[in-house]
Structures are given as C-alpha cells and as structure tokens.
C-alpha cells in the first residue's frame, strides 16, 4: 500500500518546494475564480493578490541555498507574501507561513506530527493576527477543520502525506461550509446578511493551498 510507504518517508525539501510550485500554479489557475468570489462579497482582488504573491515566490525557489530545510522554504514564502500580496490576505498568509516555518524549524524532514504542528501554528498565527473565530466566514473556517482532521489522522497513525490529504479534504469541506455563513470579519462583514450564500474567497484559497501540499506529498512518495 502506498500509504505505508508514505508513512515511512518524511516530507523533505523536495516536498516543500513542490508544494510551493503547485500552490503557485493553483493560484494562477484559480485567479479569476478567486477574484469572482471576492467580487461577490469583497472587493474583487483576492485572486490577483494571491497570484501576484506566488508569482513573486517562484523565482526565489531557485535561489535557495543548498541544505535548505522545509522551514527555510516556508520562511521565504512568508516574507515574500508579506511584501507582495498586501490586503488582508498578505499579512494573514504571511503570518501563517512564518509561524508554520517556526513550528518545523531545523527539521530536514517532517512526519505526520510535524504536519500537525505546522498546520496548527499556521492557523494560530492567522487567528492571532486577524482575531477571527470559527464561523466568522474567513479562511479560519478552512484552516481549523484542516488542523482538526490532520490531528485525528496523525493520531490514528496516518503518514505525513495521508495527514495532509485529510487536512486538504477538510479544508475543502470547510470552504464549502462557509457558503451559508454570515460574515463577521473581513470585508464581507460589511454586507451583513447579504454575505450569506457566497463562498469565502480566503477559505477557498486555503483549500487550494492545502490541496497543493497534499498533492505534493503524495506525488513525492509515489514517484
């Protein structure tokens, strides 16, 4: 079973770089969709912001010094997003990647527990910056289910890749679950009741980024 092989192999720098590449590809691919979601209940820039940020990240992947760890990659992503994305998403994702990097600092390869720490630290960073609670119709509503799902998976003995898969699926479901919510944080909160019936763009970009992480993990191990 691939999953046993995956459990045996930690996620290393190759995975981290692949995650970021896939993430960039996904932001580019879903740029218009994220703009459209944000236009409906925000100001129509989320896809543009995320795409601009990840396009700035890409060339820096080539400049990583030899011996870089996954944490180094995430830190580079963090600082690049902070200085190129802007808006609410820039500082929030920046903090997420920064805290995530901190949680796995020094490790050349991370296991399922490491994945949980990474995701949890990221989510906590977002909450610390943005003060959103679950149900406020923000990216937190994708991150928190992802953290919870990752923890149960890891607790149940899943591999790092399986743990990420569980996180990604939960983030996607969390994004879906934002649709009926009334926003209480971010720009969509200005709409009050009118925000219900629309998916939160940040929750959706989170789902795409965690999907990229999971895809990179399963790719790395099955290749």
């Amino acid at each position, binding site marked *: 079973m691939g999953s046993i092989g995956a459990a045996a192999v930690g996620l290393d720098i190759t995975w981290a770089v692949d995650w970021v590449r896939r993430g960039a590809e996904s932001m580019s691919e879903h740029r218009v969709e994220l*703009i*459209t979601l944000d*236009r*409906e*209940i*925000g*100001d*129509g*820039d989320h896809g*543009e*912001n995320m795409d*601009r940020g990840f396009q700035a990240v890409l060339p820096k992947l080539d400049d990583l010094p030899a011996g870089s760890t996954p944490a180094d990659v995430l830190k580079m992503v963090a600082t690049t997003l*902070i*200085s*190129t*994305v*802007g*808006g*609410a*998403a*820039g*500082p*929030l994702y920046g903090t997420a990647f920064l805290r995530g990097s901190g949680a796995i600092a020094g490790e050349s390869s991370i296991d399922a527990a490491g994945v949980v720490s990474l995701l949890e630290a990221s989510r906590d960073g977002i909450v610390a*910056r*943005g003060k959103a609670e679950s149900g406020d119709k923000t990216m937190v509503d994708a991150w928190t289910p992802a953290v919870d799902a990752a923890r149960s998976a890891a607790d149940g003995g899943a591999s790092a890749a399986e743990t990420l898969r569980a996180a990604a699926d939960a983030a996607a479901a969390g994004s879906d679950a934002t649709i009926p919510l*009334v926003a*209480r*944080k*971010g*720009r969509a*909160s*200005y*709409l*009050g009741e*009118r925000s219900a019936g629309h998916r939160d763009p940040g929750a959706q970009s989170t789902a795409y980024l965690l999907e990229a992480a999971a895809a990179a993990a399963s790719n790395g191990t099955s290749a």
Partner: protein
Amino acid sequence: MKKIINDPKRVVDESVAGFGLAHADLVRVETDPIHVVRADAPVAGKVGLVSGGGSGHEPLHAGFVGPGMLDAAVPGAVFTSPTPDPILAATKAVDGGKGVLHIVKNYTGDVLNFETAADLAAADGIEVRAVVTNDDVAVKDSLYTAGRRGVGGTVLVEKIAGAAADRGDSLDGVAEIAERVNANVRSMGMALTPCIVPHAGEPSFTLAEDEVEIGIGIHGEPGRERIKLEPADAIVDRLLTPIIEDLPYSSGDRVLLFVNGMGGTPQIELYIAYRRAAEVLAEKGITIERSLVGNYITSLEMQGFSLTVLKLDDEMIGLWDAPVHTAALRWGR
C-alpha cells in the same frame, strides 16, 4: 471594460509616475517600493504624516501630500492595501526626528500591513503612532463586523492633523487631534453604478437600471441595501439621517459638510445633493461653518456620492483654515 489605461498590471505605476511628473514641485515619487513623499521630506522637527491604502481612491492619498497635510502616501494595488515595505520606506523617508503618525483607514488589510510596518519602523528606532479612521455609519461597529470603515472622514483627519503637525505639535498632540476629528466625524455613501477594477475586468456588482446601492464602501464592495432609485433629496435624507443620529449631531452644533463624489458623478449632481443636505442641517439648527464639495475619496469611475459631517470646535476650524498646498487641496499659499 473601457478605460484610459495601457496594461491593467501597470495602472498604479504609470498613474503615480504621471502624478509625479505633474506635481514635481510638490512631491517625489519613489518607485521601489512605490511611495510618494513631499519634495522636501523629511521636514526636520515636524511630525511626519503617512497615509496609504489601496489605489483607486484618488486623489486620496497622494493628492494630499504637501505642506500642511501629508508627508507621504503609500498607494497599494487597486483596492488592495499596500504591503509593509513601502509603508516602512515612507515612514523612514518622512521621519524628521519627531516621530511619524500613520493615518490608517479601518480595513483589516490596511490595519495589518500598517501594524507590521510600524513594528519594523520601531525596530529601526522611529517612533510611530497610528490613528485608525472609522467614520462609515453604514457599517455597524460591533463584534459582528470588522468595525466601521474609514471613508470620507479620512480626508478631514489628514487635513486637520496635517495642520497640527505643521504648527509644531508633538506626535501625541497630532495623534490626539486626529483621534478627535475621527471621533466627531460620520459618513455614509451610495452608488448609482459599480466600478470595474482593472485587473478584474468585470463590474464589482451589477445593478438594474432603476436600482442603487445604499451604504456603499469605497472598494466597489456592494452596500448594505439595494433600493429603487429615488429623487436626490430622498437619497440625501437616507444618508444624512443615520449620520446625524449616530454621533448624534444636534441643534447648535457647528459642522463641516463634505459632499464627496465617488469618481464618476458630475459636479452638477453633487451640488444638488449639497443643497438638500444644507437644508436638512438648517432645519435641525446645525450650522454649516465650512464645506467641501468634490471628488476627494473615490472608487474609480463609480457613480454616486457620500456625505460626511464633522462636528467642529474652534481649534479644528483654525486647523482646517490653515494653509495647505497639495495637488488636490490648496489654500492660503
């Protein structure tokens, strides 16, 4: 999408470049990272004033850079708050040794990015304070929102705080007057049409030929309520009533009345709105001591307007009247 642009991705860069060329006597445009500073920055011994935010609200903020108002403006991408880097660069560029005030409109992105820049500036030994404007009564300031938005009142905060800095007030003093203006100003806006963000290429929302959005923000985001088009006077009443009730403003108050165009509304309509607003305030015994009418904080080509009322005291009047020389507001010199 029909616009006088070359490339959606270069709109801000090219426009700011043109602004710098047209107003080279007033400002210097730095391109990496992009920010606009007073030609003579830093002014020694003066508190530096920095504001910024997403582009698309012109003349806000670069149009208010100059003696008596802002020392620097930081334009982000269209409707996207700038990142910390240019805010930090602007903060450093205008620090004349007396500290720097950040005037931040209350949006999550603006607040977070300015916060980060302030932390970085502090690490570099620059004293920074921030005033967050939040005058939009269309949004309830409650646990269930990101708080009231900063809109038209921001222009008045920038003018009055700029004058306070100009007369030599300390950082705390300038921050205090800025807070006081913000505490006494309320606004509300409406839109007849949406706007189109260049990179999005689609209208921010769609309205039928007989519909308008009430309680619109300045980012092309939809308003709180969509209603059938009404006569100008009824629309003015709809915006002015919640403004008056919120502070509240009452008989005997002296105010500044600011009728702001959203970018695509002709002046002839703004003065029709002014007329009714003046009438309503007079009926309530509120005296208009100063007024401002025009496109000062806009949403690209959106048609619509906002009303802003500031309760004045003698000090604010003096600071409002003090000389100002910027691309968009100028008097006394």
